[in-house]
């Protein structure tokens, strides 16, 4: 959690994602979408501002900012 913002990237745990669409709808940059499998997916990583709102509103711990190397 102490990682610098530039080293963070969005991780999506597709096994826990229930496809509710909350992260997609309220992402200020609209960089997420529900994929063909019904789960959240990152469609435009370059424009993600790493605000963390998706992580805070996801009811299922399925999307979060974490280190980019793993």
């Amino acid at each position, binding site marked *: 959690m102490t990682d610098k913002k530039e080293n963070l990237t969005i991780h999506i745990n597709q096994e826990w994602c229930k*496809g509710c669409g909350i992260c997609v709808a309220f992402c200020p940059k609209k960089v997420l979408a529900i994929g063909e499998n019904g789960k959240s997916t990152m469609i435009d990583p370059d424009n993600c501002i790493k605000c963390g709102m998706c992580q805070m509103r996801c009811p299922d711990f399925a999307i979060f900012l974490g280190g980019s190397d793993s």
Partner: protein
Amino acid sequence: MNHPLAESYFRMDKLPHIWCPGCSHGIIMASIARAIDRLGLDKDNVCIVSGIGCSSRAPGYMDFNTLHTTHGRALAFATGVKLANPKLEVIVISGDGDLSAIGGNHLIHAARRNIGLTTICFNNNIYGMTGGQYSPTTPTGDKATTAPYGNIDKPFDITKLAIGAGATYAAKVTAFHVTQMDKYIESAIAHKGFSLVEAIAVCPTYYGRKNRKGSAVEMMTWLKDHYIDFKVAEKLPPEKREGKELMGEFINVDAPEYTALYDALIDRLKD
């Protein structure tokens, strides 16, 4: 890699949780863990107590001292825990049904005594677990399994009820307004005395379906568009306040806390 908050504060072997897609309970549960994290509390010094309901399942997932008790009685159990060990941070998780119907009496008396418990009400305006019966917070006119033609009751405002009964900290917030929710829950836990945060939640499965409120996203959008801070509302002309619901920190005052008074009484009688 794993979700850092989940890994630090939740029982990973119990996740993913069983709540429906888009149910707000997971959002509020995570907010409680973030507040505990920011306060830097020792996990062993925190006790989470719940009653029965979908919301009351939360302590099963949270990696602290936890008690999953009987319907409506979380505050009674929590009162016992707090009196036995006043150093514990005791946090009660309770649904609107659990807290204001069967448990309503415990709520008013815990508030009246100003006992140092933090209550987080997961208010989704319905009995989720048992299939969508109306609760004391179901708005007048809304439908429920037990109100197929519309509810004729007038709803409780749980925040006002707690303040009326003597709560010294009370805030209302919604599952959409997560930044404020984190802040209020943090303040409520840090507060000495009875504190309540009423978190307005969505239950897409029962309340949403019965009232044709659409998807979880549509229900969250409604919260976003209708709830405003009461301090902002005070500055608005009447026509702009119309149809708005009020949230915010409604009370935050100091008053003698019950377990401290109790300990002082014992000390006095020892001499």
